[in-house]
């Protein structure tokens, strides 16, 4: 499997993603420059975290018009797997590849800390290797991760099992105390209708090495490698 990691001006988790793929022995990793017209021979695209274009206007609002996003949109339409992490998730929302939008965190602060996540849907290519009831530990680092969808969007996400991850406590209980940023229904990650595009605010690539405190992020990357 060849992972393509898109580098926008202002991306800062591109190397983390690259390193996570390599050190976990998940496959090859390549960087894709934001003004490239195509994705080469990549089998999966990662839009990494950071502050693309300085997060000016709205996080992800300008990055979504990068030339490479046309190629990513075509790739996704043909069923190619795409993961947007943190700023990458914000870009997917702005691009309309996932529904909803991000607001400032309810407490207005930038939050950088470990959180716990529960996989709500364990049938997707991104979550099928995650054990039931496992509370995944990994960091968040964002100021605009307060997920919003209108009632119709939320009903659709729930009815179709498209909520991928929700914030929970260390016992896997989803409650308001575990919600770091005010996201509706503790939503931390969602997938698209076709099941091949995932966006999540927490950073699985920063939780792939025991030295960093958790290897739970690997479960997401390893899920993709598993046969369906």
């Amino acid at each position, binding site marked *: 499997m060849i992972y393509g990691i898109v580098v926008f001006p202002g991306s800062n988790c591109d190397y983390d993603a690259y390193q996570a793929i390599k050190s976990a022995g998940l496959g090859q990793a390549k960087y894709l420059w934001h003004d490239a017209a195509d994705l080469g021979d990549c089998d999966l695209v990662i839009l990494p975290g950071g502050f693309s274009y300085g997060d000016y*206007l*709205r996080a992800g*609002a*300008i990055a979504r*018009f990068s030339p490479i996003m046309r190629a990513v949109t075509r790739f996704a339409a043909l069923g190619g797997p795409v993961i947007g992490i943190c700023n990458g998730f914000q870009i997917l*929302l*702005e691009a309309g590849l996932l*529904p*909803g*939008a991000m*607001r*400032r*965190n*309810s*407490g*207005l602060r930038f939050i950088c800390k470990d959180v716990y996540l529960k996989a709500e849907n364990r049938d997707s290519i991104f979550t099928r290797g995650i054990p039931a009831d496992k509370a995944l530990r990994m960091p968040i680092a964002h100021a605009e991760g*307060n997920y*919003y*969808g*209108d009632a119709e969007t939320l009903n659709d996400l729930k009815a179709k099992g498209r909520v991928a991850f929700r914030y929970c406590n260390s016992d896997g209980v989803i409650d308001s105390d575990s919600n770091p940023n*005010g996201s509706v229904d503790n939503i931390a990650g969602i997938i698209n209708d076709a099941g091949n595009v995932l966006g999540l605010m927490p950073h699985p690539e920063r939780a792939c090495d025991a030295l960093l405190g958790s290897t739970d992020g690997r479960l997401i990357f390893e899920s993709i490698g598993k046969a369906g």
Partner: protein
Amino acid sequence: MNRFKIRVEVRFKEGVLDPQGETIKNALVNLGYTGVSAVSTAKLFILELAADTEDQALQRAEEMAAKLLANPVIERYSVGPQK
């Protein structure tokens, strides 16, 4: 071609929580302005652009607002001449 100044104001839609507005309201109340019951924040863009007529300039600005300046999922916008 003439040049026009157009203002585009972007605000949260009704019903979308505005955490900055809420915090500013609380600060004002704490300062003793107890009559303040709500604060909404907004972004104001002043565009300078070339067009044949003001109507055309407004129409272009409207397009820009829909495409980039506002996120229609959570925001609404209004466009008008900047006096």
